[in-house]
Each structure stands twice: as structure tokens, then as C-alpha cells.
């Protein structure tokens, strides 16, 4: 799954640690999501969408859309 988390974070000038604090997860988890090594759960994706004021689809995209 691809995502725009790193871009959205950079636009707001937030560090990984700051984003992690806002989403109640560890910095390592933010790093793993940004690098595509870990796919977040639906509740975490919703939290991220709420935080950025976007829809989940605006942030996360299927890697291989059929």
C-alpha cells in the first residue's frame, strides 16, 4: 500500500515524532508506515485522515489497483 504520509507531514513541517504523538503511536510505526513496511489498521487510517482533514483514499492508495 502506498501512502502520502511523508508528504503531508513535510507540508506541515512536522517531525515523525510529532506526527506519532498526534496519532498516539510510536515514531518507529510512523517510519514503517511511511516506508511502506507496515500497513496501518482502519482505525489508525481514520485517525490520520481526521488529523489531515482528508479522506483515507487521499492518504492511502492500493499498490496495485485492479
Amino acid at each position, binding site marked *: 500500500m502506498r501512502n502520502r504520509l511523508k508528504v503531508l507531514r513535510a507540508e506541515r513541517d512536522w517531525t515523525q515524532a510529532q506526527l506519532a504523538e498526534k496519532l*498516539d503511536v*510510536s515514531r518507529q510505526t510512523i517510519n514503517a508506515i511511511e516506508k511502506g*513496511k507496515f500497513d496501518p489498521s482502519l482505525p489508525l487510517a481514520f485517525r490520520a485522515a481526521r488529523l489531515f482533514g482528508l479522506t483515507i483514499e487521499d492518504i492511502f492508495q492500493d499498490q496495485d489497483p485492479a
Partner: protein
Amino acid sequence: MRDLQSHKQGWQANVRKQTLKLGYWTLAWLLTMALANFGPEFLWQPNELATMAAIGLNLLVGIGMIVSNKDPLRSLDEMQQKIQLEAMGLTLGVGLVSGLAYSNLDVTNIIRSDAEISHVVILMGLTYLGTVAALTGKMR
């Protein structure tokens, strides 16, 4: 209410608090383990009742430690929980399979010495630590 308070304290502070709590339980369990092991020899000489009481205390504190392990696990985020789940699953499998194989080696007298449970505990500890380290590294 408890969740709200936990959230106010901050996620990381809550993880630290829960981990510290588990640390205290683990320390208490280790101390009661030492008491049950060394007490009969150094503290009360052979006294079956005192030994049984020490083993019972060790068991009770051990149960407390197991129950208190639930909160630190719940306080972790979803990726950390996934890592813990995989590490604990692998540790259980390694412990079960190698422990029983080790026991068979002893029962069939292929190894000369007695199979020691501490060897299995060490193997399980190393498996758990190694798996957590490997999975954490993989996520970087």
C-alpha cells in the same frame, strides 16, 4: 475514565508506566523465586511447610506478573503489538518443540546429563529477544 486519563498522560508516558509496573512484578517474582530456591538451604533449613509457603508465594506473584503483562501489551501501538505477537508465537513454538525433543533425548538416555528446564527457558528468552530485534530491524 481510565482511558481518558491515560490519553491525557500521553501515549508514551503510559507505555513507560505500564512497562515499569511489569518490571516491578517481574522483580518481585525473581525475588520470590530466589527465596523458594535458596530459602531451604540458607534461611530455614529443611522445613517442608516453609518451603511450600515460599513456592506458593512465588506462584501467586508469578500469576500477578502474568496478569500485569496484559496492560503493557495493550498500551503498545498496533505495529509493536504485531511484533510482540509474532515473537511470542515463535517463542512458544520453539519452546514446545525443542523442550519436548530435549526431554526425549533425556528419556532415551541419548544425553548423559538430566534435561534442565533452565536450558529451555534460556532458549525461549533468546528466541524472544532475537525475534523482537529482527522484526524491529525489518520495520526500519
